[in-house]
């Protein structure tokens, strides 16, 4: 059999393989995006940008445990003005670059999207699902179908680029939120953000480790939940799904595709297997596909469904 084809088209964006650097991991500078691209990512996402600069929470902001990671970084970012300087001429990154945009009210999202308009981004991702930053995501009530609809409509009007809406796995009505996003004109659903929030307590210090006390849980612990969310979403939305949550190996990626994702996001996997996790996952996918008679990515998407 010929070598399987890993390339995919996501909302008319061509990706050489289905691995995408998830937002919040390494996406702070253009130089790091270039490095991740050289390490095999099919596309990359920048760390979320707000209208104004934010220092985020104090350290510790990220802590690992035996089944993944808990983080409450608190959306530290230089604000849209500095971000537009940092992320310019993105064509040189070599792979499509996705802008992650955050806001407290819908006008903020629009301002940031407009501020980044000349940078060469291939798509806009809107996380309405952060579990640990006051004023944003779940802590600002953005995870309801109503709020998601309103923000998506506003962003949809502000850009011609594909708009991805990123959802929380911790909302029981995730399918209703996804449907609201689709109805409002979203181009794809990113599922899922970190879950929880969770907490890790240091028993000798008698205190939570994270400075914000609680944080979003990612990695292996999240994977079965993310796979289930994508499986459920695949049944209710027609737009593509970017499956994210605990993917570190080719097998994990294929499992996510089979649940219904068109492409996969990689975050905590960078910690588990290094910055070249993207190349490793692609290699493992190719081998498994060859051994199991799959010639392309599309033929695996959603096959776990009846």
């Amino acid at each position, binding site marked *: 059999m010929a070598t399987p084809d890993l390339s995919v088209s996501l909302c008319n964006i061509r990706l050489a393989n289905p691995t995408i650097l998830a937002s*919040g*991991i*390494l*996406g*702070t*500078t253009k*130089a*790091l995006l*270039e*490095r991740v691209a050289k390490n095999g990512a099919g596309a990359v996402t920048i*760390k979320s940008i707000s209208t104004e*600069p*934010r*220092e*985020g929470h*104090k*350290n*510790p*902001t*990220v*802590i*690992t*445990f035996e089944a993944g*990671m808990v983080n409450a*970084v608190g959306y*530290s*970012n*230089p*604000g849209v003005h*500095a971000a537009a*300087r*940092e992320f310019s001429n993105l064509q040189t990154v070599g792979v499509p670059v996705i802008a992650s945009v955050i806001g407290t009210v819908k006008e903020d999202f629009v301002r940031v999207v407009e501020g980044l308009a000349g940078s060469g981004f291939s798509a806009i991702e809107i996380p309405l699902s952060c579990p640990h930053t006051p004023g944003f995501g779940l802590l600002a009530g953005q995870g309801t179908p109503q709020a998601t609809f309103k923000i998506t409509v506003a962003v949809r009007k502000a850009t011609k680029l594909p708009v991805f809406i990123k959802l929380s796995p911790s909302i029981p009505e995730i399918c209703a939120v996804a449907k609201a996003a689709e109805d409002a004109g979203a181009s794809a659903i990113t599922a899922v953000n970190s879950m929880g929030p969770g907490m*890790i307590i*240091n028993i*000798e*210090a008698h*205190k939570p*480790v994270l*400075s914000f006390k609680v944080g979003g849980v990612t990695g292996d612990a999240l994977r079965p939940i993310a796979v289930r969310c994508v499986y459920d979403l695949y049944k209710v939305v027609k737009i593509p799904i970017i499956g994210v949550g605990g993917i570190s190996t080719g097998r994990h990626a294929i499992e996510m595709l089979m649940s219904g994702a068109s492409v996969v996001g990689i*975050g*905590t996997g*960078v*910690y588990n297997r290094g*910055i070249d996790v993207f190349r490793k996952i692609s290699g493992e996918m190719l081998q498994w596909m060859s051994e199991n008679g799959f010639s392309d990515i599309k033929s695996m998407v959603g096959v776990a469904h009846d």
Partner: protein
Amino acid sequence: MIEQPAMVKICDIHEDSPNVKTFFFECKVGFTPGQFVMVWIPFLDEKPFTISYVKNNIVGVSILRRGAFTTEIHKKKVGDGIGIRGPYGRGFDLRTNLNVCIVGGGIGMASLATIIERLPDAIVIQGARTAKEILYKDRFKDMKLSTDDGSVGFRGTAVDLLEEQLKKRSIQKVYGCGPEMMLYKIVELCKNRNIECEVSLERYFKCGFGICGQCDCSGQRVCVDGPVFTGEELSKMDDFGKITITKTGERVIH
């Protein structure tokens, strides 16, 4: 490697200078000179510090008082607890039988102290602003000193002293740590003379293990790809000596 902060008890404290204290504690982890640990004070903050002392199971970190966190650490007493995770990062490569010169500026000496112990024949240069700020005077007897005000040793910089040594002797490798402009000059000097060098950089760290991207320096993560880089690597890192990244992620001039 300790993944989550382990609470350790401070078993000894040395006052190295009016603004620097070394805190000692028991910690059974493998360690390469130049690596760092994240030191945690619950509900306050967590910051990276290089290990400046290691003997059997006793480890020390030398901390310069310069902000809210380090001021709080300086109030700690023997018997108090602090959280430690790590060690992290790529340390110095000591597999060398070359003629070595070790150059430290200010608190940068902390990163070099464990190399000095392992390379007893190395020439050691320490630069400080004034005599009172010279570190480890009793620990290392043969250091060549420079101060900005001339209150001890040569009046001038550690880089001046290095330049003099490079003229006098056949130095084949230089290890450095200190303010980035000093490191930049060291790397330039070594490049011009075709001498190997390794220096340790400082950036604002969050995770400490290479995923948050906060400590980027031209695509290199200072926390895991460094903090020690070779002169050759640094020659490809345009931000070295010029740009650092703040807590918000904004690029600022060094």
